[in-house]
């Protein structure tokens, strides 16, 4: 049996299991709290695994391993920002959000503000961030399945995107937060075991000699004249050839990664799935443990692929390096367990990669459809007059519509280089959402004008800077390589747009006289003590 057949069988087993979970979850989902927040009944450990499942995308599993395999140290540098970011979530956001919100990011922002303008802004930002991230994942899925299953025809890629999108819609529409969370938990366990197994085999292969592994990686895949270059920063981000702009771009990327996570809507709504703020804290602690260990594993996987598979073979299959980890699984499996072992391991890693994509896209669809139904439909269009039942029906319909739109856009964009959308999603989250969240929780004087200015200021400045950056035009690798209207030299807008977001929030606030002392007292007391925080749904 070939590894692609076996991979398909394993993947179908995952799909069958997760559809079973979805059917079970749909029977448990009755109220709005069930649909949006899984009845707030998850434990800290379960939600921590789900956080890992939501966050560790195929881009971070296959992508970072691939960047390390081809560019050495820089892939590691990239992963560190994704990890440190969780401290912002742990120290400043998770518990306070759990205590003061219900279902969406906007719940916290609109708490002491005029609800309609703030929910409109927060809803728009949530949907923009989630759809960018979603597109990057789904377009990636099409290409990835092509590589792993050997499907190279255009029709094959289109069908892959449609299948991934259809499953994602089913999980979210029927399973709601409960079903989606379990899909993420199952995926996190599979991904961690797959990555840990291959890492262990690589270390056994090198007799647990890390220095030997690094030396071999540099010698096999580093630059011919100067292999040590492979073990220091600068082969991919801020290369010497790019000069000062490249190095500032590196800092800009680092800032967006470290400040973006705590403003990503699909991450924020995870804090609502647990009964108390203490469980929200526990979930982030679990999340940090899992995500940290995962990036340490990808470090070994990346250098392992560089040492054992080698640059030539990796780039022959995919110039982007996305198949470095699967190729490594095949090779170490063969070396240690023989040909059959290699085939089985490759199939397993392939199936894990699909599971990874599905869990992440489901989380994103849920975040955007929840925000559409709860913020835009129930509070903006219906001015809070919609019944719980109507809201959940609208949430399900919008999951279907957003999913269908994402499938369509992904098919249109399938041959485009859309990897920059992930960094852009982080930049928008860091520039618009994070300032609004932090000001709401900590700044007494903050008001409606401030919240709206922070969100739109951050969102618009990040978008505009990217439109006029080298990722959209003016270079060979740009989205529109044939035109050149790029005047902003950096590919990551964070270093400008994050301060702009904070500044807009500040100016908007001080230029408006509105201020509600009583409501600030309420959110401050509630966020720190948990008074009035909605408890777990009983049934």
């Amino acid at each position: 049996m070939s590894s692609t057949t076996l991979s398909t069988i394993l993947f179908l087993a995952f799909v069958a299991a997760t559809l079973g979970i979805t059917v079970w979850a749909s029977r448990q989902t009755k109220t709005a709290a069930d649909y949006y927040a899984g009845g707030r009944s998850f434990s800290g450990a379960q939600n921590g695994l789900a956080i890992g499942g939501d966050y560790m995308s195929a881009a971070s599993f296959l992508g970072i391993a691939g960047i390390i395999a081809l560019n050495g140290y820089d892939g590691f540098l990239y992963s560190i920002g994704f990890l440190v970011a969780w401290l912002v979530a742990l120290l400043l956001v998770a518990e306070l959000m759990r205590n003061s919100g219900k279902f969406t990011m906007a719940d916290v922002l609109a708490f002491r503000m005029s609800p309609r303008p703030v929910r409109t802004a927060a809803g728009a930002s949530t949907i923009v961030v989630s759809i960018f991230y979603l597109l990057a994942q789904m377009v990636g899925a099409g290409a990835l399945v092509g590589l792993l299953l050997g499907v190279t025809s255009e029709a094959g890629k289109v069908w892959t995107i449609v299948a991934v999108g259809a499953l994602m819609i089913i999980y979210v529409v029927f399973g709601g937060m409960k079903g989606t969370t379990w899909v993420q938990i199952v995926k996190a366990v599979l991904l961690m075991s797959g990555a840990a197994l291959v890492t262990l085999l690589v270390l056994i292969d090198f007799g647990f000699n890390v220095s030997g592994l690094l030396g071999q990686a540099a010698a096999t895949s580093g630059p011919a004249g100067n292999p040590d270059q492979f073990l220091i920063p600068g082969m991919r981000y801020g290369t010497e050839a790019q000069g000062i702009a490249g190095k500032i771009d590196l800092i800009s990327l680092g800032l967006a990664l470290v400040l973006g996570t705590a403003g990503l809507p699909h991450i924020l709504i995870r804090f609502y799935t647990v009964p108390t703020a203490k469980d929200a804290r526990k979930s982030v602690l679990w999340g940090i443990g899992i995500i940290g260990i995962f990036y340490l594993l990808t470090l070994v996987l990346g250098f392992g692929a560089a040492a054992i598979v080698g640059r030539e073979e990796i780039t022959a299959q995919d110039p982007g390096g996305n198949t470095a980890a699967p190729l490594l699984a095949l090779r170490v499996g063969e070396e240690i367990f023989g040909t059959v072992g290699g085939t089985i391991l490759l199939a397993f890693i392939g199936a894990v990669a699909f599971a990874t994509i599905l869990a992440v896209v489901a989380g994103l669809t849920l975040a955007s459809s929840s925000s559409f139904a709860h913020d835009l439909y129930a509070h903006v269009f219906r001015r809070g007059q919609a019944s719980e039942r109507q809201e959940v029906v609208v949430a399900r319909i919008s999951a279907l519509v957003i999913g269908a739109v994402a499938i369509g856009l992904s098919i249109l964009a399938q041959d485009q280089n859309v990897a920059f959308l992930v960094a852009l999603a982080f930049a928008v989250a860091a520039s618009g959402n994070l300032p609004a969240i932090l000001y709401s929780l900590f700044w007494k004087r903050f008001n409606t004008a401030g919240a709206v200015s922070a969100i739109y200021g951050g969102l618009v400045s990040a978008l505009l800077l990217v439109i006029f950056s080298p990722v959209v035009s003016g270079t060979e690798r740009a989205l529109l390589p044939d035109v050149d209207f790029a005047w902003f030299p950096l590919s990551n807008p964070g270093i400008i747009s994050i301060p702009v977001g904070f500044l807009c929030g500040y100016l908007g606030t001080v230029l408006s006289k509105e201020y509600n002392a009583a409501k600030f007292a309420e959110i401050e007391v509630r966020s720190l003590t948990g008074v009035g925080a909605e408890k777990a749904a009983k049934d």
Partner: protein
Amino acid sequence: MTTREHDASVYEQVQESSEFQELKRRFRRWTFPMTVAFLVWYLLYVVLSGWARGFMGIKLLGDINVGLILGLLQFVSTFWIAYAYSRHAEKKLDPIADKLRNQVEEKAQ
């Protein structure tokens, strides 16, 4: 008892109480400086990665260099800060928060 005006005044009373002020002080005095510290430490690492590549490449143990150790130290500091925060919250924040929450919820009944 459950009108919004009444709730708001309860919240304002709690907000002014010395116990709540102590909770807020303990929370902010730990998390704010620590946030500044880990952001500065992370940015220092990124700046070194951009401008001090020779330093990052100094080999310490076989092919293990300063850059790798500094990167791994980012993992260690992240794990440590997460652990230290959970200890701080359990010992210094949760008892006051629990007490205040029980007080307010009893009053509201």
